């Protein structure tokens, strides 16, 4: 029979030292998290680029789609499909943008074929950027949400989290599958050029500018013709987007999502994530205390 012996750990440093060191470590962690919280909120939306899509001025020529394909290095749209007719009707790994042709019923009888250009909305607070565990998606100072090849690990959380189902995955690449999404022509806007699609638009349906100006412009157009513009999409949805849609057709008939909250999606996560340092400190202290009490009792008894 051997004597009950003290816990080996307790013999080396006193519990007080242990608790002290623990508290010091944990507070360091908490301070670190608070500091990084402050820096991450410093994004400046007023410097972001934005596009106003006035669907009443769109003729559905798909020049934007063509320009986007050409910029990506693909051959443009074949001439036969240029102009009319719905294309693939969805975003794919190749097409970062497409013109969705919506059948909208009219009072006169025949359906109206309404073109709706779709692409990444470049949210002011993008869900994809907030969920990416390796910062492979980032929002540049120009407001473009871009994907970085060198960091991506292929977890596909961005595909799940995106409220507009924008990022597309290269499923059949076994070694280096990529995520493809509209990058707002970040290299072009950095050089002072227009995004390719905006530059290609022949009717002025797409207008590029600073976010605050574009939002003002959109609201001014609605104010000027409030009966005509029944839809302004993107000013509030998921905390606001860099692409704003104006239309004379109700939003639910345009194929744009209507079930999204108006608050920023990353905030939903951050409200919990920001509490983690407190859980770490609190639980660490409680458990250290419990261990101290219990092992003292053990040694006494």
């Amino acid at each position: 029979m051997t004597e009950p012996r003290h816990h080996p750990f307790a013999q080396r440093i006193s519990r007080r030292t242990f608790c002290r060191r623990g508290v010091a470590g944990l507070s360091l962690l908490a301070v670190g998290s608070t500091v990084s919280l402050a820096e991450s909120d410093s994004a400046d939306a007023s410097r972001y680029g934005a596009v106003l899509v006035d669907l009443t001025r769109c003729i559905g020529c798909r020049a934007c789609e063509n320009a986007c394909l050409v910029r990506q290095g693909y051959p443009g749209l074949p001439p036969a499909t240029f102009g009319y007719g719905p294309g693939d009707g969805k975003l794919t790994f190749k097409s970062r943008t497409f013109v969705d042709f919506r059948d909208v019923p009219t009072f006169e009888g025949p359906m109206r074929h309404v073109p709706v250009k779709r692409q990444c909305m470049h949210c002011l607070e993008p869900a994809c950027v907030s969920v990416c565990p390796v910062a492979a998606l980032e929002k540049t100072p120009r407001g473009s949400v871009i994907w970085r090849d060198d960091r991506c690990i292929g977890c596909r959380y961005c595909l799940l989290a995106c409220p507009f189902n924008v990022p597309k995955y290269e499923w059949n690449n076994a070694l280096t599958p990529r995520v493809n999404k509209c990058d707002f022509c970040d290299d072009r806007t950095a050089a002072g050029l227009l995004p390719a699609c905006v530059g290609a638009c022949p009717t002025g349906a797409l207008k590029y500018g600073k976010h605050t100006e574009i939002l003002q412009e959109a609201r001014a157009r609605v104010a000027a013709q409030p009966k005509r513009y029944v839809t302004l999409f993107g000013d509030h949805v998921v905390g606001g987007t860099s692409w704003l849609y104006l239309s004379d057709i109700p939003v639910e008939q345009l194929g744009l999502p209507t079930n999204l909250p108006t608050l920023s999606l990353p905030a939903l996560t951050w409200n919990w994530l920001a509490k983690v340092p407190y859980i770490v400190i609190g639980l660490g202290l409680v458990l250290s205390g419990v261990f101290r009490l219990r092992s003292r009792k053990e040694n006494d008894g």
Partner: protein
Amino acid sequence: MAEMDFLLVLFRIFAALAMAGLAVIACWFLEGRQHPRSFSAAVVGWAFLIALWGLGGYAFATRYTLGLGAVTNLTDAFPWGLWKAMVLCGIAFAAGGFLTACMAYVFRIRTFYPILRPIVLAAYLCYTLSASGALIVDLGRYYKIWMPIVSWQHRSVLFEVSWCVMLYTCVLTVEFAPIVLQKLGWHRLERFVHAITVPFVICGVVLSTVHQSSLGSLFLIVPQKLLPLWYSPFIPVFFFISALVSGFAMAIFVSALAFWIFRRPLDPKVLTALAKGMTPFLMLYLFLRIVDLTARNAWVDVFAYPLQGFSFTVEMALLTLPLFVLLKTRWSGRRRWAFAAAIPVILGVILNRLNVAWIGLLPATGSHYFPSWIEIVITLNLLSFGLVIFGLAARYLPLFEHSSTRARESSTSVAVAGEVHHAAT
């Protein structure tokens, strides 16, 4: 191209044969001389494992040569499938590891000393195979799985989860190391590991609390996709409490099964104590879920979506029915009933994770995802790896040394953090 295809087929067949061969070797080592079984039972078991690993070799080879698109039913609309769900299920199941360690090392409850080693091993296998293993299959660029270490994004839940899982795997290594070190006879190193165990356990409990709840937080960002039956602003709390419940149930399940299969005596008090511990957390979980569902008026979805409503009903039934056993002291005081109550609880928590990561996401994403046979075979393979490694460890490592009877017999064995000495005195 034709030659290339032919080579790929050859490679897959080679992988299948290699894995089948590995299965034969595993069976050889698993089949000890101590417990002779009937010939037919052994052959059925062997044949099943060899067939499963053979198929697995084919599946792994296909996945790594053709990519995710060719072997899974995942789409852009439904990017997370069975393997991601397996990560959630495996980590929920592994909660027994931190829970038992917390009760034994921090709360110093001696009742749980004997079951500590099998449970820590089971949790270790869950984390390495079900979490890291499934991720290495699931990630498109699996060879970059270490990327969160260097490329930080502190606002991402997945970043936090990956760090917690990495660190907690280290904690589990420290908790598990004495078993191997004792076998190797490296007693000085073993004593050193004992000395640092308690702070590591405390870190492990903190890390587990954080990442078990954060696995729920992963879905906070999809309010428009996850059905209100499971989407709740309090989903991290639910994930944490259900992980505690699942941890108790897993501890009952693993210890009962391990001690029974490997014919070691186990104090019946251990199982009933665990069942007693599980009851309040299970009641709390169900109470909070019901309050939450009622407050958000989510019950209507039970009838609005047939599949989801059915799955939800089964989940709730699996978690509610054991309460009838657990609350009746005449039954809960018997280990057979404690074991019987643990199984539906485990299944209920696993179904909850499947509902959150799979079934609850189907209606809003408009997809009809069902895993392909390769996804299922790889999942079964990862599970069988865990079982085989557990079996080998039980056979060749001092996995049941904590048990008081063994400690009495072998007074020469080195003390394991003092527990054995306590048990002996």
